[in-house]
């Protein structure tokens, strides 16, 4: 009986080992190639006279590298906004995966400082965040600030990942990041492996008008072990 139990145990261990080998993923760095919308610049763009403005790359941005298994954990997740009644669109559109700039794909929030908060539904280790404000025209959005935290009110484990508020007009401190022109590639920021459940995006108007827009927000990460 003892022998049978021992043999059974060995068979189970061997089977589990084999299964784990068969189903284990080879960990490597994989490039995340975003499915990008078509560029939508139309008409003669305005002359952008913005301080601390980053020049366009002049070529497609390289794919960013993340560990195997990393995916957009914001897709389809709940979004909250400082503007409960958007001028155009619905808040849910911000995480619906549609990155097009056409009518029906973007949300227009009111003027002044506005924000949207994505609830990832669980804690994640975040590697990269990509977001699109509005890329139908070459615009620059002001006071773009991105924060991650453990709670919706952004009080616990808060990390500021991006801040281009160069004059501290929004009160998050002077931002060292540069202004950038919105394109169909979106803005990619390095999330530096911060952990958290909520990601909050602020902005305060743009070079075209005082309104705030969001087309899509994507957070690339892995569930926290």
């Amino acid at each position, binding site marked *: 009986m003892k022998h049978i139990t021992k043999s059974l145990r060995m068979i189970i261990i061997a089977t589990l080992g084999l299964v784990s080998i068969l189903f284990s993923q*080879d960990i490597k*760095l994989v490039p995340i190639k975003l499915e990008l919308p078509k560029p939508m610049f139309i008409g003669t763009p305005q002359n952008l006279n913005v301080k601390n403005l980053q020049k366009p790359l002049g070529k497609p941005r390289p794919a960013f*590298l993340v560990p195997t298994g990393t995916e957009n954990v914001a897709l389809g997740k709940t979004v909250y906004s400082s503007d409960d009644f958007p001028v155009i669109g619905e808040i849910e559109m911000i995480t619906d995966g549609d990155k097009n700039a056409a009518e029906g794909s973007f949300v227009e929030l009111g003027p002044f400082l506005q924000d949207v908060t994505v609830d990832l539904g669980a804690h994640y280790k975040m*590697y*990269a965040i990509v977001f699109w404000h509005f890329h139908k025209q070459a615009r620059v959005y002001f006071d773009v600030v991105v924060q991650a935290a453990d709670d919706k009110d952004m009080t616990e484990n808060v990390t500021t990942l991006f801040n281009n508020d160069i004059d501290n007009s929004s009160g998050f401190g002077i931002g060292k990041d540069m202004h950038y022109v919105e394109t169909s590639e979106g803005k*990619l920021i390095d999330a530096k492996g911060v*952990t958290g459940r909520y990601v909050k995006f602020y902005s305060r108007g743009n070079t075209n008008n005082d309104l705030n827009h969001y087309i899509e927000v994507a957070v690339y990460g892995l569930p926290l072990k």
Partner: protein
Amino acid sequence: MTLNRTRTALVLSIIIIAVLFRFSQLSDRPMHGDEAINAMKLAEVMEAGRFDYNPHQHHGPIFYYTSALFAVVRGLLWDIQEFNEFFLRGITAFVGLILIWLTFGFWKSLKNDVVLFAAGLMAISPSLIFYSRYFIHEIFVVTMTFEFMVGIYQYLKTKKQSWLILSGLVLGGIMATKETWPIIVSSMLGAYAILHYKNGLRIKIPLKKILFVIGIAFGLVFLFFSDFLQDIPNSTDFFSAFSPYMYRVADEGIHNQPWYYYLNILFPFGYSWNSLHWAEGILFIAFLLNLRIKNQPLIVNFLFWYSLILLVILSIIPYKTPWNLLGVMPGVILVATYTIYHVFENPILRYGVIGVLSGLIFLQAFSYNIMNEADQNNPHVYAHPTKDILTIESKIYDVADQVDVSVFIIAMDDDYWPFPWYLRHLDNVGYWNHVPQNARNASIILISPDLEKELVNVLYEEAGPGELSLFLPLFDEPMELRHSVEILCYIKKDIYDTYMNRINNE
């Protein structure tokens, strides 16, 4: 008078062609890992004034000390920053020219035309040119071996002591250059033994003179291995080299090749179907046909058997690298030339054959050394870096011109050469055979794919929140260190952003 002028013109033409083939576009081919290591070792010798011999990794000191002499003559400072590909390969190219010049040492036994044509074929020999443009030990060994034969040959003709001294010195030179010297000496003894039993050859050199030559050789070996008496205990390194070499020869290693490997270089089946690349193979057939010729000069007989025995021994040893074939080629060329000259008695036919063969060899040499110098279809190209390495070098220097960078180069078994050569002008470069814990501090990472999993662990798994950085591929296309050996190239996102921003603002 006219004949003399013609010969002078021919000799001058041979020298000019030899120089052009050996010195033009010397910097174009990427540095081989072995060349890069030799360059770094040379820098060490120049800085320290002594040679730190590692019998497991490196060859003997003469190569480095001689190269150091060239550096001093060129007025280069004691720093690798001053070196470049042209200077380093120029040294071996110069030694390759001496090899051709040595052919003229056989004037007295061979017909003038044979020596001239042999020198001409050596000037355009694809393999002799290839390894003359290669900063490794082989051309040194082959030239000194040929010089040893010329020295003994001249001594037997003239009985002048100076030829014996020269022979002793070059024999010591061979011994202090590469651990393969016993194969060379065995081949010479084997050739002598065959001629002794087959042709009744008796070389009349008294035993004490032979001991004199051996004494000079060992004296020179002692001088170099002891770093000119600076480090006498170190001189025993000469003997300790045999054990690793024997182990390497007997072991199932990555350089083990089938017995016909060297023949496959001469007859490049599987490499290239270009018929132009068969010229040295035809020359080898002419060399073998020499067996049918009776009553020929002793030196031709000797070179035939020496080259054949050397080829057989090298073919039997499983450890094979293409440059070992070089030792066989001077003998093959000289014997083949003599054979062609002897077989074709009609001058028109003789010069016609030599002319056509020379043309084919010339084209093969041009293809192997100028057109396809780093192409995998060239059988001499062995574990050679692809030209991707020049793209990587250029990109890293471009980034470093704009941003302060730290470059981490990580490869299993330290297989990251020749990067230390190419990135020698950068201060902040590190090399590892494993992924270091501080890899996340790197601005640029070059890593072999087999260590990628470890890198992911260090960069993404073990990094605490906020310590991690996003990396981007440095290139749009995959990069190869060598043919089919990928090297992954990553750049930290913030470094990339700063770099792009600065070049866009320029």
